[in-house]
């Protein structure tokens, strides 16, 4: 397959590969958060589940969704749709749990990733799903803009944004 795509294209990806450009950064941030949430919830549930069952179950759920979103970001392709759902769930989760932890603190004797809108994690859990959704949308658009058959780039006048090196 002779792909005319240049090796280093910082512009929008041509197919639904989600990893190009800023996607790689998102994968790492998601991965770290998934790691933190998973580690935390495994230990919470195995060591002292009785202390705050609701909070710990939420932690575990959040961890699963973060792992799923990381996977979708890394894989791209048909996983993009799944990733959009995962990010949407995260956004709803962080907003609902975040507000609930302010309004009904007694229901959350211990923290989850989503408590207080993710304040314990530098509000990263609040910002990340928004960035994820924006990125997935861009990947979707990039895929739609270029149909399955790659049109050979007409020499010169196509890449107005990219300056030749």
């Amino acid at each position: 397959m002779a792909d005319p795509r240049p090796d280093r294209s910082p512009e929008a990806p041509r197919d639904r590969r989600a990893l190009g450009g800023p996607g790689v950064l998102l994968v790492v941030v998601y991965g770290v958060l998934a790691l933190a949430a998973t580690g935390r919830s495994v230990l919470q549930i195995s060591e002292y589940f009785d202390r705050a069952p609701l909070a710990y179950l939420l932690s575990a759920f959040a961890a699963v969704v973060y792992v799923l979103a990381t996977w979708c970001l890394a894989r791209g392709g048909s996983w993009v749709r799944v990733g959009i759902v995962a990010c949407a769930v995260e956004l709803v989760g962080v907003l609902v749990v975040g507000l609930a932890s302010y309004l009904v603190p007694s229901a959350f004797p211990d923290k989850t990733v989503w408590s207080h809108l993710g304040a314990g994690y530098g509000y990263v859990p609040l910002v990340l799903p928004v960035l994820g959704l924006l990125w997935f949308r861009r990947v979707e658009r990039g895929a739609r803009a270029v149909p399955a058959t790659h049109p050979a780039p007409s020499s010169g006048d196509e890449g107005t944004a990219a300056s030749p090196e």
Partner: protein
Amino acid sequence: MAGVIAPLTYVVVGLAVVLCVAAVWYAVRDRLIDDRLLVVAALVEVGLLALLVAGLADLGHITDDAEKATFVAYLVSLPVIPVGTSFLAIKEKSRWAMGSIAVGAFAVGVMAARLAQIWMSYG
């Protein structure tokens, strides 16, 4: 062994800061990953593995179960980060990948500092 952990954590935090700054510098200059940066990442990794061994060998130092759990979770997760980001940067050659090394190194620094904090609170 107990005396090793606090200084070792500081060394790791220092190396992570170096890696973070270097990766940001690379990203700004639009330079791709090279051997020099990989060596720094490898040093961070060696530090983290040493920390993992030393920490697990002397877990009794932390008496509170919850804090011990957090400590172990961090110890085990940390070594994954530099390997993951370096692998991505080699696979995905772009300045964004350098940014991912920087973000990963930052996370390592923060988590290692938290490790030191937990450890020190037990004297």
